[in-house]
């Protein structure tokens, strides 16, 4: 384990940014935190998490896939990808780090999504332990340890120092570059912090939420539950929950006529939308209740069914904070799964 002083972080950022683009959570003028490309003078936000998840770095909201140009009877197909460059995402929380595992399951499974895979290869994740989780946090429900985030490098921040530990080869290589700015140290301070975080996690209002009632094989039990109707009663059908979610990975592929050719692009889609997976026969889920059920069944039942029991929710709490009508996965888990599981 290595450490550096908090005051020297600007030098550390400068060092990292020499070799690769560096993105870190920065407080905006409106007080909201967003991943921002580092440049001299930007400081690392103290806030717990960013409004949007870090999935944009690997799976951007819109992305051009290919371009078609016609001349006479010929169609020219142009790969619009620019060569991927190395980049570093700094300060990712444990929940968001876990979200990459969920996305990997989808995009790296055969047939591999080469757009996503290339970004994963070029990205280095520096994960930060949570010192101050908030009431909407429930990552422990999904077995995530906020005090020991995965990622290529894990860091812990104390009042005056930042502790570094590499977890992968990529991470070790980057950490070696920072040798001049960091020094070898014992793990005492980090161990103490881990304990403190563990104690805090127990105090969270959602600390006892568990997934016992969910997982593979529960489809028949919950699919026709009468509670879905009541839960979805006031759902607006907007896409906020899906777009702030770090694990939602549905997308649509569309063509844009530029007047000079056609750009085929993909963009995030939301199962809450009325035209989601619309086919010639129409949208298979006709009512908002069915769409609402789809989202939560996918996260809590279908995804674990197909992915060795892994849930596609990481408990980051963004949807709890952002839903316009405050309907969210926690309320669904408590209602559908029964109060005794909450």
């Amino acid at each position, binding site marked *: 384990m290595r450490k550096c002083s908090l005051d020297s972080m600007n030098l550390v950022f400068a060092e990292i940014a020499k070799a690769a683009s560096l993105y870190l959570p920065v407080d905006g003028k409106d007080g909201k935190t967003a991943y921002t490309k580092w440049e001299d003078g930007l400081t690392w936000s103290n806030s717990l998490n960013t409004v949007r998840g870090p999935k944009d770095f690997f799976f951007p909201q819109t992305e051009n896939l290919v371009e078609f140009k016609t001349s006479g009877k010929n169609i020219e197909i142009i790969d619009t990808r620019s060569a991927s460059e190395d980049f570093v995402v700094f300060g990712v929380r444990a929940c968001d780090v876990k979200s990459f595992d969920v996305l990997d399951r989808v995009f790296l499974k055969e047939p591999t999504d080469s757009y996503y895979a290339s970004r994963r290869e070029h990205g280095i994740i520096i994960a930060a332990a949570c010192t101050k989780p908030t009431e909407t946090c429930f990552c422990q429900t999904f077995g995530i340890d906020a005090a020991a985030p995965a990622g290529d490098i894990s860091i812990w921040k104390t009042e005056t120092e930042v502790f570094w530990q590499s977890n992968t080869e990529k991470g070790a290589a980057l950490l070696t570059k920072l040798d001049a700015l960091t020094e070898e140290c014992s793990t005492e301070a980090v161990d103490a912090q881990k304990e403190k975080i563990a104690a805090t996690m127990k105090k969270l209002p959602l600390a006892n939420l568990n997934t016992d009632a969910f997982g593979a094989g529960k489809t028949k039990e919950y699919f026709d539950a009468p509670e879905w109707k009541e839960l979805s009663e006031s759902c607006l059908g907007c896409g906020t929950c899906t777009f702030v979610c770090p694990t939602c990975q549905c997308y649509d592929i569309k063509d*844009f006529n*530029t*007047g*000079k*050719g056609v*750009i085929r692009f993909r963009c995030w889609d939301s199962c809450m939308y009325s035209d989601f997976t619309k086919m010639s026969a129409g949208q298979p889920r006709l009512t908002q209740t069915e769409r609402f059920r789809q989202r939560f069944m996918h996260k809590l039942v279908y995804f674990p069914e197909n992915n060795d029991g892994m849930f596609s929710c990481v408990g980051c709490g963004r949807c709890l904070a952002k839903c316009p009508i405050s309907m969210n996965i926690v309320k669904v888990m408590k209602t559908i799964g029964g109060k005794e599981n909450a």
Partner: protein
Amino acid sequence: MQVKEYKPLIVAFCCNWCSYAGADLAGNNRLSYPADVKIIRVPCSCRVNPMFVLRAFQRGADGVILCGCHPGDCHYTSGNYYTRRRMALLFSMLDYLGIEKERTRVEWVSAAEGAKFAATMNDFAEKVAALGENKRLEDLRCKR
């Protein structure tokens, strides 16, 4: 190498009954106005949805002008009165978003005003040319 002279692309929405006939008259009278003014004929100036104006900019227009019958002379009695309110609000909003106000205009041109049509287009094209390319409401995908 010769530098290509910049000429603004202008979209003119002309109402079928007055302004389109006005443009015709300008042609018949051999009055010249820039060839880069592309006329789109609409049944009435109030057919023009604010989205049309924005999409014209998206597709590469540097200026958008609406021409209709003089207020009171609308073929459909009151269409241009609605246009007037809509465009007043839309243009004010575009200005509020920092988009150059000289890029949009509404002008009333009757079927007898061929000369006014040509003069209006010349003047508008000149003002837009002075602003240069539309950068603030552009869609880069359409520019490649």
